[in-house]
């Protein structure tokens, strides 16, 4: 497509000074044709696999469909069902717990570790690789590793606990401990990106304020909380939103692989519930309504954070 239009460009722009005005108009047309040809493949893909699924997901929320028989319009039935479905409320609670248990430690630990490695000491670039490494483990790789670590009888975690006299739980099949076990694993996977973003934020904080603070006699710990932390506030906001989204949607693969939502649904987040409704029950309409509901919730979280920022700005 692109190659057929290009010789025309050579011809028209080959002698620009003779027929300047018409060449200008022609080259404008050539620009438009070339630009159209350049963006078309990407746009086709984008419309077919981004726009249509997004709008289709919205539309399917109002239908009942099992993938094979023709879809039936059911109006708001799926939305009404959403609010009266105890499994949905349970999954929503699990999702909220994943976010609350996961995001706060990830952000605080990420910040502290970033401050720790934000130095120019020799050899630091090699050591930093270890901090970034968990990022490249896929959900499946991480699950294989952590399933071995969490093994109730032979896993390293319980061996270590028994060494100090604690009888460790059967982590992944224990209704109390399965969720924290998955959260710890997800925090491990999420820390590298948080550290990277904080390192970027820290590098924008000027060194002068620390020099001034040292002269004033502020200790390291005091400097950290009263100077560094407020100065990386924009990064903290960004990281919090990204991690909230990450724990809502990212918990899905991990719990699908490691516990399949169990034991007794204690690790079944909304995303996993929607997945099961879609692919086990083949109830596409209701699954779409569940996905839509999550999107609305995420949008609400983002708006809430922006509102908090505005309030904070108004008071400072």
């Amino acid at each position: 497509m692109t190659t057929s239009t290009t010789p025309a460009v050579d011809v028209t722009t080959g002698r620009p000074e003779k027929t300047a005005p018409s060449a200008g108009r022609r080259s404008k047309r050539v620009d438009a044709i070339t630009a159209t040809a350049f963006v078309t493949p990407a746009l086709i893909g984008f419309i077919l696999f981004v726009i249509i699924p997004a709008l289709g997901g919205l539309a399917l929320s109002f239908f009942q469909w099992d993938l094979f028989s023709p879809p039936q319009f059911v109006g708001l039935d799926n939305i009404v069902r959403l609010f009266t479905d105890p499994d949905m409320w349970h999954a929503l609670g699990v999702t909220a717990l994943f976010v609350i248990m996961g995001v706060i430690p990830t952000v605080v630990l990420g910040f502290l570790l970033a401050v720790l490695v934000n130095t120019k000491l020799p050899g630091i670039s090699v050591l930093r690789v270890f901090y970034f490494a968990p990022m490249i483990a896929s959900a499946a790789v991480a699950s294989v590793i952590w399933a071995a670590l969490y093994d109730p009888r032979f896993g390293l975690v319980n061996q270590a606990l028994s060494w100090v006299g604690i009888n460790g739980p059967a982590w992944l099949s224990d209704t109390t401990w399965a969720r924290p076990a998955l959260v710890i694993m997800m925090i491990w996977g999420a820390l590298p990106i948080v550290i990277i973003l904080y390192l970027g934020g820290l590098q924008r904080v000027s060194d002068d304020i620390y020099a001034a603070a040292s002269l004033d006699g502020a200790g390291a710990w005091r400097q950290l909380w009263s100077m560094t932390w407020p100065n990386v506030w924009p990064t903290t906001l960004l990281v919090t939103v990204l991690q909230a989204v990450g724990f809502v949607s990212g918990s899905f693969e991990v719990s699908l692989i490691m516990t399949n939502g169990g034991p007794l649904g204690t690790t079944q987040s909304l995303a996993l519930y929607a997945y099961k409704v879609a692919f086990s029950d083949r109830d596409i309409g209701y699954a779409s309504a569940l996905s839509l509901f999550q999107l609305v919730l995420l949008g609400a979280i983002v708006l809430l954070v922006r509102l908090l920022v505005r309030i904070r700005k108004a008071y400072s």
Partner: protein
Amino acid sequence: MRTVLSNTARYVGIVIGAFVLALPLLFMVSGSLKSATEINTFPPKLLPTTPVWQNFADAWNYLTGGVIANSFVFAIGIVGLQLIISLPAAFALAKIPFKWTGVIMASLVIPMFIPGNLTLIPLFIVTFQLGWLNSFAGLIIPMAAQCAFAILLFRQFFVSLPGGLIEAARIDGASWLRVLWSIALPLSRPALATFCSVSFLTAWNMYIWPQIVAPDPAHRVINVALAPLAGGENSLISPSVGLAGAVIAMVPVLIVFIVFQKWYIKGVAGTGLE
């Protein structure tokens, strides 16, 4: 004296942090070479007494070379296809005067904030309707079409290229395609390194998409084959063999990560900094 002390304390802190974060991966590597009994002894040995290379042979037989080949086709297919469609689009949006630029940019950016897992079901349905289940087309094309990140990354880079260079080439009669190929691309090596490393790692590590679109053995990718080893349902397979499989699954991304580290980290840092 005080700074020497505090630097030493800091080093100790950094090394402990590095060790704790890397511990699960170190456990994976050392566990993959231990025998089925040795992996469970406590306190754990850092290194296996005698490396059991048989674990890797067993893991390879379980995963199969075909699955690993599928993973390469899948990941390289996504990277390649995204390059082919994103580079011209990004170039047009950056350098060719075009009245739709603003509209296209806006429509690309907005859906970027929707997590992929929420559009998984409708995306699966589109792929299903196209008759692409259990095919490489179904695996690769819908994922390659998620190219907003690639277009924005390359566009940002192309915008920064000096306009005079491109104008001069245009006046000399070079077509836009030629300008893209011979002038813009050779200058874009950093952006290409960033994109290729991020895109390859993301694609290689995908689990849920290949799992729902192409679960049949002929198209299975490595993460789909590996995941059942984590659920405990394959009790016949020893954890050391599972860990050896995890090592095999991680080797390609580890190589890409180490070689492209600088660019990769720039890329993942950039995804959050709009």
